């Protein structure tokens, strides 16, 4: 699977997403639950803003000195007997990993969930090299068993499926005969996957945070699958986006804390594992050989530019869990493995505007994403910037909403899109309302009011609006 998922046009994907009732219910419920958990976990600290500021200063410092820290990291990994390969492109990374697989004569690869390996389409590269690839994260495993259904959320990949669907898939593909109880389904997966772990030749993981000072890296999971991936096969390959590192254990700790609280509302997840090099002499579990593949794949062209701060991202999905657009259209509508606000910012940068130029318009600029981001990425501002770039590039009139309408297949001038966001902020808005027009909105809304006046928010919901779109998008 590559970064792009499916061949449908944006409009069709959104339509499908909106028509999928279970998916929408699941997404809405998930957002609420994960949102509440995140809020509790961040508020109980009492000084969350301090934490965010600390997260941001760490990420900024690392990006500004990225070449230094990557050099230090690679030296220290090699000093512990690891092999480091720097891959400028996805193809280079895949070729290297295929080479390792071939040299080991590998037949079976077990993987722990990793976005960067999806991004570079590693699984199909491994299959070409004659390997069977098994995803071991429960959610990813479910998708894989279901003929590689694409993920719809970066933390909970099978969010769009209900337990009855999962039971049916297991029954059809794995001969499963029990009920749709999550415990029974999970137990079945556990038994199946145990066999795979015990017989795999290579284990592949992503990397939450590498630690330059010691050449270590950390993996954050609740299931413990990453630990089996890194304990049982003889060869381990870890793939990391080049920005995913910190100077020392102390900064790693801070980012891990930000990640677990923001993504799943836990103080720490069940398993946080810090690995350094291959197993030591005389150790009998852990890999004999360790490879670290550091991937650029378009990241260096983001560095140093106006979108640099997106590389602060620690992939927590907090922005996805509060996004009103994601709530209505679901993860598949984005057509990218990176969905939600982070996906709308990152996908055009890594995958190109041609492929993903609608995404910066699949937002309301309501700013909820920016508010929750644990490393203070100004997501809605970056989305606004994307729109400006697109407008400049395509030489269109500098009215963001015109482009938005076009991208959404509407061709009308009604600025209905923003209402989706404003539905969530009517109380904040009211002081700025002048009759039924708003001339100066607070905070994030300023971006809209900068370019034009727009009608005061009403209760129209995105899906109603979207249903109306073909009728010219008239206000309902």
């Amino acid at each position, binding site marked *: 699977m590559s970064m792009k998922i499916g061949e449908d046009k944006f409009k069709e994907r959104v339509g499908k997403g909106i028509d999928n009732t279970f998916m929408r219910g699941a997404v809405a419920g*998930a957002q609420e*639950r*994960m949102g509440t958990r995140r809020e509790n976990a961040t508020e109980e600290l009492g000084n969350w803003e301090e934490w965010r500021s600390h997260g941001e200063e*760490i990420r900024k410092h690392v990006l500004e*000195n990225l*070449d*230094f820290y*990557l*050099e230090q990291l690679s030296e220290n*990994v*090699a000093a512990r*007997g690891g*092999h*480091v390969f*720097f*891959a400028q492109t996805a193809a280079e990374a895949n070729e290297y990993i295929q080479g390792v697989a071939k040299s080991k004569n590998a037949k079976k690869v077990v993987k722990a969930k990793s976005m960067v390996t999806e991004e570079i389409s590693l699984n199909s590269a491994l299959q070409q090299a004659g390997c069977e690839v098994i995803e071991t994260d*429960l*959610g990813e495993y479910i998708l894989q068993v279901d003929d590689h259904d694409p993920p719809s959320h970066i933390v909970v*990949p*099978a*969010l769009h499926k209900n337990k009855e669907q*999962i039971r049916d898939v297991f029954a059809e593909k794995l001969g499963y005969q029990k009920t749709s109880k*999550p*415990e029974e*389904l*999970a*137990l079945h997966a*556990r038994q199946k*996957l*145990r066999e795979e772990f*015990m017989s795999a030749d290579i284990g592949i993981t992503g990397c939450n945070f590498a630690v330059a*000072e010691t050449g270590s890296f950390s993996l954050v999971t609740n*299931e*413990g*699958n990453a630990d*089996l991936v*890194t*304990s*049982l096969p003889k060869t381990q390959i870890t793939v990391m986006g080049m920005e995913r590192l910190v100077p020392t*254990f102390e900064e790693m*700790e801070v980012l891990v*804390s930000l990640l677990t609280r923001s993504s799943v509302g*836990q*103080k*720490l*997840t*069940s*398993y946080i*594992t810090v*690995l*350094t090099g291959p*197993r030591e002499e*005389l*150790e*009998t*579990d*852990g890999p004999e050989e360790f490879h670290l593949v550091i991937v650029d794949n378009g990241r*260096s062209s983001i560095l*140093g*530019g106006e979108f640099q701060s997106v590389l602060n991202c620690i992939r927590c999905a907090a922005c996805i869990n509060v996004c009103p657009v994601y709530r209505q259209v679901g993860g598949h509508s984005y057509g990218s493995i990176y969905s939600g606000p982070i996906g709308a910012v990152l996908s055009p940068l890594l995958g190109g505007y041609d492929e993903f130029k609608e995404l910066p318009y699949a937002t309301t600029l309501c700013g909820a994403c920016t508010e929750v981001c644990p490393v203070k990425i100004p997501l809605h501002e970056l989305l606004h910037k994307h729109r400006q770039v697109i407008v400049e590039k395509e030489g269109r009139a500098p009215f963001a909403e015109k482009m938005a309408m076009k991208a959404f297949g509407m061709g009308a001038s009604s600025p209905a899109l923003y209402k989706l966001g404003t539905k969530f902020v009517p109380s904040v808005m009211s002081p700025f309302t002048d009759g039924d027009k708003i001339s100066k909105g607070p905070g994030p809304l300023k971006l809209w009011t900068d370019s034009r006046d727009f009608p005061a928010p009403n209760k129209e919901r995105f899906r109603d609006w979207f249903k109306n779109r073909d009728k010219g998008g008239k206000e309902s």
Partner: protein
Amino acid sequence: MTGSIQNRDAFLTQIAKSLGRERRSKGVAVPAWKHRPQDEVLKGATQDELVEVLKTQCMKIHTSLVVTNLQDLPAKLGETVSNYGGGPVISWKDERFSQWGLDPLMKKGWKEKDIELYEWDESKGSENIRQAEKSNVGITISEITLAESGTVVLYTDKDKGRTVSFLPATYICLVPKSSIVPRMTQAAQKMREMHHQGKQVSSCVNFITGPSNSADIELNLVVGVHGPIKATYIVIEDL
């Protein structure tokens, strides 16, 4: 073991170019950070207070917590293993079990009750993993324990296999009270200090917080997916 590095120069030069400056190979120090919120968590808490925090947190992470002393430790450990359905048991090879008076239980008591004990043995190679896989209970010792999150920290070495805490169906960790610190911050500092003292950081450091779980099916919490299904921490007060 010799490592290797490939393709580094072009890659890092590209980064420096994007950043609009020359390559930086040295001269970068970790700055004095403006913010340090992590130091405020449970600041100044006594060891007893930390035990209380740990207790409360264990209820949230589906983990049983037993507080005991050296004298009662064998009884408590024996009880916990029985509650988990007995053997086979696998443990690290660690002198501390014997120092803490556990030999009569582990080497004799269990044998009499037909509870099989396997002790990690580097000379036996992959047999260790096979034993861990078929074990009902895995037993290890926490080096550092994080009160805030309810986390035990394990350092792997040749006598302390990684899989003892992952493959068995249930998991028990012995926690010296003195190992309890406020949060991950102190553990990270300790690990860094060890590194600066020239002690090599362990090839695998596990931060374990309760049993394995997943919320991948309709966000329902399922306990015990790949790793243990149940977990108990036994805090030893006079250590």
